[in-house]
């Protein structure tokens, strides 16, 4: 099957979205359930196979390997309808360091299901950054279901940034759970979503801190306008001595949109400390007025504030 057009289109859209995929970078590029291109590099093993509706892939960053450039995962579909299911397992062995950049590209989707089921293991002293950026078209109602389970070992660090701000969200059910089991382990999860029209945006971030002196941050920035709906559920649980965590949620609501935030802080060890902050509602007047006093109109001020928040 010749998929050169699909390949070129996905690469081009990824580049426009801000993170180009270069041919010498480690990558896996998938259209529908076809692996169009795959490349590993020293220190990284990739094992991928096609399934009925997507792919199943495992990535292992070998012990001590430090990948200087991001590993690009590009999952997309150029059609209007369909279904894509991505099953992945990423393991960073002891002392490894890597950044995975996941591009999820559905520019024409009208009726589509994109499901991702990911298992991630961050080994002792390993450091992983996971960026997931979605590019959707302006029409239609794609259903996006990213489900990720992460385990972080001693002195390991897991940082994830999920971003769905281009085009319509559709129906999003983001569900990330991180278990920081190792001493001095770190987890930081950030989710940024811009809901429009009648989009539904559900973001669920959970961090359990069972490692001594481990730390975690669950952060969400959600902007909702038109008739969209958004709900953030962020939970950080302190279950070990010296564990420190924080839940930080800001939801801005415009038009007829509706928002809910459920920050949950729980402590099951007397030596743990968990805090939270949540701001939900319209943009504060003082922010708007501050910019309007510099000559911006109210709408220009809103654009500046929203784009900063979702940056």
């Amino acid at each position: 099957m010749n998929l050169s057009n699909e390949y070129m289109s996905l690469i081009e859209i990824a580049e426009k979205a801000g993170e180009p995929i270069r041919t010498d970078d480690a990558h896996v590029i998938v259209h529908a359930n076809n692996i169009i291109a795959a490349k590993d590099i020293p220190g990284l093993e990739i094992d991928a196979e096609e399934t009925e509706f997507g792919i199943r892939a495992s990535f292992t960053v070998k012990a001590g390997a430090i990948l200087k450039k991001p590993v690009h995962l590009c999952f997309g579909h150029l059609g209007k309808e369909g279904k894509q299911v991505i099953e992945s397992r990423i393991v960073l062995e002891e002392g490894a360091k890597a950044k995975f950049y996941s591009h999820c590209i559905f520019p024409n989707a009208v009726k589509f299901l994109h499901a991702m089921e990911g298992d991630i293991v961050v080994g002792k002293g390993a450091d992983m950054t996971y960026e997931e950026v979605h590019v959707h078209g302006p029409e239609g109602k794609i259903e996006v279901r990213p489900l990720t389970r992460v385990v972080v070992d001693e002195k390991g660090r897991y940082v994830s940034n999920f971003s769905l701000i281009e085009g319509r969200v559709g129906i999003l059910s983001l569900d990330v759970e991180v278990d920081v089991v190792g001493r001095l382990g770190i987890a930081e999860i950030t989710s940024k979503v811009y809901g429009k029209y009648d989009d539904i945006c559900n973001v669920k971030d959970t961090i359990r801190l069972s490692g001594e002196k481990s730390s975690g941050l669950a952060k969400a920035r959600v902007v909702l306008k038109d008739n969209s709906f958004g709900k953030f559920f962020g939970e950080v649980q302190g279950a070990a001595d010296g564990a420190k965590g924080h839940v930080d949620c800001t939801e801005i609501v415009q038009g007829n949109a509706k928002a809910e935030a459920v920050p949950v802080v729980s402590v099951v060890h007397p030596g743990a400390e968990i805090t939270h902050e949540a701001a939900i509602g319209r943009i504060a007047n003082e922010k708007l007025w501050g910019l309007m006093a510099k000559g911006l109109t109210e709408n220009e001020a809103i654009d500046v504030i929203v784009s900063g928040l979702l940056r």
Partner: protein
Amino acid sequence: MTDTPLLQVDEVTVTRENGKKLLDQVSLRVGHGEVTGVLGRNGAGKTTLAYTVMGLPSYRPNSGRIFFEGKDITNLSITDRSRLGITLAWQYPARYEGITVAEYLRLSRKDATRRELEEALDFIQMEPFYLDRFVDKALSGGERKRLELASIYLMRPKLAILDEPDSGVDLLALGDVIKLFKKLIDFGSSVLVITHRDDIASACDRAYLLCNGKVMLEGQPVAVKQYFMSLCSPCSDPLLAGGVISNESQ
């Protein structure tokens, strides 16, 4: 210099919905190239006056008029007033997540070069590395205040309203505030400075003493300052209510 003042506030009254008068028939003028001080204790109505001149929606006059360069701006929006050349350095500047200091400063002057941004920061004693920081929790309240002043330095407005420019965690020294006044005047701006510090008032060309939303004294800064410092209780002194100390009386 023209006879028409740059800013003229004419018997402005601002009343809350509960009937409380925040400003009571306040009249004030700022001349071209002048630094005008508004002195008063906490709660006197100084910041309310600044917000009213800037045009904040909750601080619209119930009566009275505001003129800028002879034009009635009483019903203009904040944006329109800003575009006419009025701006405000806030006492407690807001945080803006995801916006760098450089981007924030360029909202005041779009075409400013990196060098000009650095110069503005240098003027208020901030290092160039701040340009890449975000205007959020990464900056202290004092740093955000300085940034507001840098913003005004770049904007070069016709009228800069400075609300307590010297207050905050990271205080600007009196000399720095006076240096800023002089620089703004050099740029062709006029300044309306809100302060509760008598030494700041001394650096003005004209001063007003505000108490309980009323102008109690107007005149030479030294005289207004002296009255303010001498256990200011003008509200209880009916002879001084609405009083003017002329230049000759000094």
